[in-house]
């Protein structure tokens, strides 16, 4: 028997002993050899350690997996039962929501309808008589009466405020723009705007929020395409 064969046999014996696969005589013989051979004992200990590590980890996983799997299966069963119950309920003679509400409302339908009609009548009357100006809302937009003398496209350079320009002629609801006084606004508590919808023309645009000591100010940045600076174009 070569050394290799001996080593292999030793290893097989170790495994067999560790696994409890030896008969009584073999076990007795091997235990005698263990007492003599410290290296063999050390190897047996190593096998024990390895087995504990591997088996322990696997057992730990094995403990979890069935439990998790069991819970998963149970959840699926629950869901299936609930679904079937709902299907059975809906397939049954379950009345619609209106059918269930109507018996409550039917006795009171007439008085409620009468009261609602009276309330609507009162609202209409109040609205029609409350604010005289509402009854004369102009059909057209709020344009000045004077016929606009359409001015050509304004020059690109913005004049200073001292220039008295003629009134802007496009559908402006402000009479005598040259005499318009600026509106006074109070200091707001917040400048933050809620932009519900936005469309950019040109190339693109974006929205920014500027933080300040008085809160947030919404800034919408637009991008204009290049246009001729000199507005010499005429209509």
């Amino acid at each position, binding site marked *: 028997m070569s050394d290799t064969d001996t080593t292999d046999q030793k290893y097989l014996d170790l495994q067999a002993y560790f696994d409890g696969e030896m008969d009584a005589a073999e076990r007795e013989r091997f235990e005698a050899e263990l007492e003599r051979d410290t290296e063999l004992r050390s190897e047996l200990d190593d096998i024990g350690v390895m087995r504990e590590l591997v088996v322990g980890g696997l057992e730990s996983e094995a403990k979890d997996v069935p439990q998790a799997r069991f819970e998963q299966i149970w959840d699926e069963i629950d869901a299936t039962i609930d679904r079937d119950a709902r299907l059975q309920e809906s397939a049954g003679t379950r009345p619609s929501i209106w059918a269930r509400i109507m018996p409550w409302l039917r006795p009171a339908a007439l008085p409620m309808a009468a009261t609602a009609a009276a309330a609507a009548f009162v609202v209409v009357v109040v609205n029609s008589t409350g604010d005289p100006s509402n009854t004369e809302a102009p059909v057209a937009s709020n344009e000045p009466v004077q016929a606009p003398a359409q001015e050509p496209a*304004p020059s690109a350079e913005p004049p200073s405020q001292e220039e008295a320009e003629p009134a802007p002629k496009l559908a402006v609801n*402000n009479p005598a723009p040259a005499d318009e006084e600026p509106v006074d606004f*109070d200091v707001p508590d917040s*400048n933050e705007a809620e932009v519900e919808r*936005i469309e950019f023309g040109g190339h693109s645009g974006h929205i*920014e929020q500027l933080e300040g000591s008085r809160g947030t100010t*919404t800034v919408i940045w*637009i991008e204009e395409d290049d246009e001729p600076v000199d507005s010499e174009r005429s209509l």
Partner: protein
Amino acid sequence: MTKTRQTNRLLSTGLALVIAPALAFGGTALTPAIADAADKADCQVTSVLASKEKKDPRIPKELNFLKEQLENDRFAAYNSFKLLERKPFKLTKGKTSKGKMKSGHEFGFTLLGGDDKRVKIHASLLSKSGKKLLDTDYGIENNGIMIVGGGKHPDGKIIFAIQCKSV
């Protein structure tokens, strides 16, 4: 079954007693108040030229109401600001009010609604050539400032400060 019918009748009677008066009084009480607060608004567009040309003061006193915003880092690239124009717009709910600024840009405003604290506005901006630059619906507190920046100008950029309040 009899008890159910009786219960239904009691519930329906109770429902009628509660809802009907509420309809009668609530409609008359609430409707006029909301209508009055949201029917008209005053807006104003302040156009400001943002320039890289250095001037002192950087922010003139007539633009003090925008000082906090113009001092933000976002505008740090500009060395001076100049008030170009203030243009008021009077809005009536549902009607569009348009006006052309001296820079050639055209604003259009429509009062969509609001109350005594906030306004809801539709705003549109066209370029000098009539090209759409912006179209937006927004809500803002009364007197709140919304800024539209980036308008084209030969000497820099135009910043439009829009303020609105319900009247």
